């Protein structure tokens, strides 16, 4: 029963129809939430007691970091499903996500670096959190190169799936790096067992920005998937013709 349902979505033409409204909604939500979030974050939220205005970098830095991790987790699950069920659609989706993930990873690294200078006194240090996040950038690069190398065939699909699963070990390392080793980067402020250690006036714009960037990610990912499906259709027609 469930398999029948999945099969229905595995048909690319039907899938295109299914994702179209989601793509639209994601775009509107992203624009709306990012507008409200940026207004709140830049104009109305209070400065921090230690860092004063510099804290506003957080509203870009932290959501991008979360989304780059989420993007990788999604690649992991789509690759896993591809390996088990062998539906081409799963790997097609998985292969479209890295380019978006790497963009948010870059945003995270650059904003983090600019934030580090005024607060810590340095642009970059080789502590566990920063280094593991740089490794995430390299893993994304590897996945993108692999995908580009097999642009016109499916030969790279299975290696893409396995490599992305192996690379997923970096995600828990990033998350827990600040707890396992002493680092210059501070421990988690929001996702922690004893609740957030960030005051509500700053948590609310952070959550709005995170949702906005999440919807932006969905919009970009769905757009990529859509164009990848169209490209596949055109290619197969060319072969036939």
């Amino acid at each position, binding site marked *: 029963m*469930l*398999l029948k349902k999945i099969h229905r979505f595995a048909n690319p033409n039907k899938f295109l129809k299914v994702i179209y409204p989601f793509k639209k909604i994601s775009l509107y939500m992203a624009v709306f939430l990012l507008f409200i979030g940026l207004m709140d974050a830049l104009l109305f939220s*209070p*400065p*921090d*007691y*230690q*860092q*004063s205005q510099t*804290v506003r970098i*957080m509203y870009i830095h932290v959501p991008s970091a979360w989304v780059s991790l989420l993007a990788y987790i999604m690649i992991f699950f789509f690759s*896993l499903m591809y*390996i*088990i*069920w062998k539906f081409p659609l799963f790997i097609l989706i998985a292969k479209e996500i890295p380019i978006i993930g790497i963009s948010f990873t870059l945003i995270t690294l650059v904003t983090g670096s600019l934030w580090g200078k*005024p*607060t*810590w*006194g*340095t642009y970059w*240090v*080789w*502590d*566990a959190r920063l280094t593991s996040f740089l490794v995430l950038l390299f893993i994304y690069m590897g996945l993108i190169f692999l995908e580009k190398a097999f642009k016109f065939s499916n030969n790279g699909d299975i290696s893409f799936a*396995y490599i992305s*699963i*192996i690379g*997923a*070990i970096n995600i828990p*390392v990033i998350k827990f790096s600040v707890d*396992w*080793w*002493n*680092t*210059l980067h*501070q*421990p*988690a*402020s929001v996702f*922690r067992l004893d609740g957030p*250690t*960030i*005051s509500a*006036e*700053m948590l609310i714009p952070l959550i709005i920005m995170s949702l906005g960037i999440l919807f932006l990610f969905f919009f970009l990912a769905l757009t990529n998937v859509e164009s990848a499906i169209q490209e596949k259709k055109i290619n197969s027609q060319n072969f036939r013709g």
Partner: protein
Amino acid sequence: MFSNRKVNRLYLVLLICISVALATFFVLKALEEKIVFFYSPTKLLEKNVRGEEYIRVGGLVQTDSIIYEEDGLNVIFSITDNKNVVKVFYIGILPDLFRENQGVVVEGNFNSSNNSFIAKKVLAKHDENYMPPEVKKAISGKSK
């Protein structure tokens, strides 16, 4: 829903995940000494480092320990982990967040003979608490 071959593939992936996790665990465990970004003062005194070794030590700036020399560049302060204290000598500009009871990481050489640290670089750490100044004032007012 799951045929035999699919279950086998699932087991294969699980096996890969577990072996990768174990391998990473042992590598990180073996490298633990190198991955830590800084030593605490206690760890530093235990470790018996030689003078020429370039290391990082982190801790809180001890209350009433900051002394600025007259030229305004030389500064002496102590960092502590509430067990042991290391005296730090530094020439240069301190980060904005540097203050008493603030977490800092100093980079440089340790002289074990007189328990002093010559810092080449001072980095400020900030903790995971974010709040507006008024809230901070209210909290510290209550505790006093």
